[in-house]
């Protein structure tokens, strides 16, 4: 009797799953990774939140299918001669999903809210190029002194502290999104609850089940609604990547925004792996007595065989990093820095590195003792194990120590680690300054506390240089200085990993790894 019930259950279940399969024609099912902390653009910080928020709010600038900045809520802009004043015309047909027009006032309100210390927006510093932004954010100036002003309802003027060639790109970031002043004033912090939320983007969130999914539906009031094809987007929160791949293969997901590196062959042509602007690196603690000698740091860097990291160790083809700024970064010089030993055969490099270590007084009997700290993760562990065996060849013995991510970064930020710490940086916008700033003296995420006044001065000089090419030269010089100082140890440039079903069209792998749903379509 039990068995017949079980059989019925299975039969019924299959009917259910079949009917479930039939109704999802224009729905995009996206495995989105983590659980969003919020839908408020001023309170989010992750790429999984960006996918949702960027689908429901549109900034002055937005991204095209390739992730490059294009006009969004603005229909045009002008830049003053000195590169300091940007004047945006906001689209006449840009409206909030409740019918209210999007005004310059909404942008002013949003930028002031972002910089208001009470909002405690973690990413506010991304818009520090705006005049007085840093002071306002620190509570030293009034909100009204922020360099964002509404000339009239549809004209917005943004004044910058210094000319910033990356500013239009930075405006695609969610920190620069407008928020609906009328809704925020009416509902307060609850304006992002699904019953209150309004957006000006192609989709509007309608349902949020924490731990499961967020559902957004196409907004008919969006200015380009006629070209938006996907009618409904499901963003699933799922951290277990193996389970995600299973569900992808079961046809439940159209897009995986990440997958375990070892699944790349199993996914075959669905796997979309693309170069991504960011670097995996090892921080070298410049305060550690044993790393004071630049030749020791150089030897450590030289002794690493970077060519095996991406292709063999991780299996996803990360590109070996012999520089700090990822190749292809905008507003930069053509032949940027690369270590002169990059092309030396690995065996010779190890010889040279060993000689440097021996000159510094280390030998097989008197090895340099280092600890590699990394955040718990299979890939980071494999890398640490591999590097410690590479370093063994140059008289270095290593101890590995791992901790979960919050603990690990807490230690890095407080410079509380023995010698070597694993870190990664994904660029917030496409400009070399975003990478180089990590090595500036007074900045918190300069984990190794590298400090070189010459380097700092070059960064300051670059901020006031109007000529783009001259600025690029200054920044390239700064990179060279930091790299020759062995300020940090770049290992590999990131790649983004997506799996995209053949049913989906319009997904273009790109270096920003931004794929707005409005450019995609789905066939059965």
């Amino acid at each position, binding site marked *: 009797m*039990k068995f017949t019930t079980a059989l019925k259950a299975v039969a019924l279940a299959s009917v259910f799953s079949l009917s479930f399969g039939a109704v999802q024609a224009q729905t995009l099912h996206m495995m989105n990774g983590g659980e969003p902390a*919020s839908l408020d653009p001023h309170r989010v910080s992750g790429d999984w939140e960006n996918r949702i928020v960027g689908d429901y709010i549109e900034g002055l600038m937005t991204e095209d299918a390739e992730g490059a900045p294009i006009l969004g809520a603005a229909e045009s802009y002008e830049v003053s001669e000195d590169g300091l004043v940007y004047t945006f015309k906001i689209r006449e047909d840009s409206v909030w999903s409740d019918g209210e027009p999007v005004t310059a006032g909404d942008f002013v309100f949003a930028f002031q809210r972002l910089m208001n210390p009470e909002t405690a927006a973690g990413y506010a510093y991304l818009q520090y190029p705006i005049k007085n932004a840093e002071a306002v954010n620190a509570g030293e100036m009034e909100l009204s002194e922020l360099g964002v002003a509404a000339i009239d309802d549809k004209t917005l003027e943004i004044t910058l502290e210094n000319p910033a060639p990356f500013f239009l790109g930075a405006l695609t970031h969610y920190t620069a999104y407008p928020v609906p002043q009328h809704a925020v004033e009416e509902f307060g*912090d609850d304006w992002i609850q699904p019953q209150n939320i309004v957006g000006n983007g192609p989709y509007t969130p309608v349902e949020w*089940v924490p731990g*499961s999914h967020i559902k957004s539906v196409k907004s008919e009031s969006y200015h380009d609604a006629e070209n938006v094809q996907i009618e409904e987007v499901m963003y*699933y929160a799922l951290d*277990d990547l193996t389970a995600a791949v299973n569900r992808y293969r*079961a046809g439940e997901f159209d897009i995986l925004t990440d997958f375990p590196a070892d699944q790349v062959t199993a996914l075959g042509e669905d796997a979309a792996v693309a170069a991504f602007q960011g670097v995996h690196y090892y921080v070298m603690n410049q305060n550690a007595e044993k790393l004071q000698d630049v030749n020791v740091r150089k030897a450590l860097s030289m002794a690493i065989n970077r060519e095996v990291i991406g292709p063999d160790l991780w299996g996803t083809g990360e590109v070996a990093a012999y520089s700090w700024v990822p190749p292809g970064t905008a507003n930069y010089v053509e032949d940027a820095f690369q270590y002169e030993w990059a092309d030396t055969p690995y065996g010779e490099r190890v010889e040279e590195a060993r000689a440097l270590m021996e000159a510094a007084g280390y030998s097989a009997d008197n090895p340099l003792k280092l600890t590699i700290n990394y955040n718990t993760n299979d890939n980071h562990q494999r890398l640490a194990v591999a590097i410690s065996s590479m370093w063994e060849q140059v008289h270095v013995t290593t101890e590995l120590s791992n901790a*979960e991510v*919050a603990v690990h970064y807490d230690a890095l930020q407080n410079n509380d680690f023995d010698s070597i710490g694993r870190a990664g940086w994904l660029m917030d916008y496409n400009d070399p300054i975003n990478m180089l700033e990590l090595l500036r003296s007074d900045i918190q995420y300069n984990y190794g506390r590298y400090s070189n006044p010459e380097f700092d001065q070059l960064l300051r000089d670059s901020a006031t240089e109007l000529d783009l090419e001259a600025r690029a030269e200054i920044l390239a010089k700064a990179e060279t200085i930091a790299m020759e100082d062995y300020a940090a140890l770049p290992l590999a440039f990131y790649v983004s990993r997506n799996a995209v079903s053949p049913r989906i069209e319009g997904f273009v792998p790109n270096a920003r790894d931004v794929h707005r749903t409005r450019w995609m379509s789905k066939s059965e």
Partner: protein
Amino acid sequence: MLRYATRRVLSALPIAFIAVTVCFFILRAAPGGPFDSDRPLPPEVLANVRAYYNLDQPLFMQYLLYIGGVLRGDLGPSMSSYDFSVSELMAIGMPFSLQLGLTAFVIATTIGVLTGMIAAVYKNKWPDYLLVLVVMIGVIVPNFLIGALLQLWFGVYLRWLPAGGWVPGSWAHLVLPVAVLSWAHAARISRLMRGSMIETLGTNYVRTARSKGLGERMVLARHAIKPALIPVVSYLGPGLSYLLTGSLVVEQIFGLPGIGRYFIQAALNRDYGMVLGTTLFYMLLIIALNLIVDLVYAWLDPKVRYR
């Protein structure tokens, strides 16, 4: 019996209090905080955030504020989910976790008791061996592996069932998670039931019943089942709490919106409020279940008396 129950409930309160206190201070002693990540907050911003969550107060003051809040029924804000308070998240996750856990509980207990009985009756014959084999799989293989395998077979290869996710009202989505969750539980109950049933079938009163001329069915139904269930019942309380708290792995694999998942995420994110809230919930649940089990004893075993 009512007096006994009241006394048990009252004695549970100090236990709950101590547990929350210990949990509170252990959490704070753990390195890292809710706002540590690879992107550090600027100091001014961090100060604002910390003030918002009372984290700038002395630790003992924070503790008093928290206990005060709990007594008023306010579990405080979640530190990693800005748009929901801890109570709101619990209200969303709890019904789901309970539904999942209780469904698994009912199914596992029924299957466990039945298979245990069958195995005992057919002791050392092929039904016994077969059932022991199936049961052992549930005990030995960890649930994350069973979960992934079932997902592959039924979701990917056969496509009979959804491989994960949750659609309200669709029980098809519950089949695999419930199967994974209940397997190990059914296995344990089945083993308990088999052992205790074999023992019961060898007792004098069962022999007496048989010698009266009662059929084997009647012997089982009237005389053997009830006493054989006692060890099973003593396991049900901890078993149910295991199902409700142990659902976190299943929730993680199948992407289900239950509190087990919130609990894991909260612990990793150092979301103090959420960890304490879920701990409190689990603890009260376990205390309540143990009480119910103790009361059920009285019904099953005439030798137990409550004072």
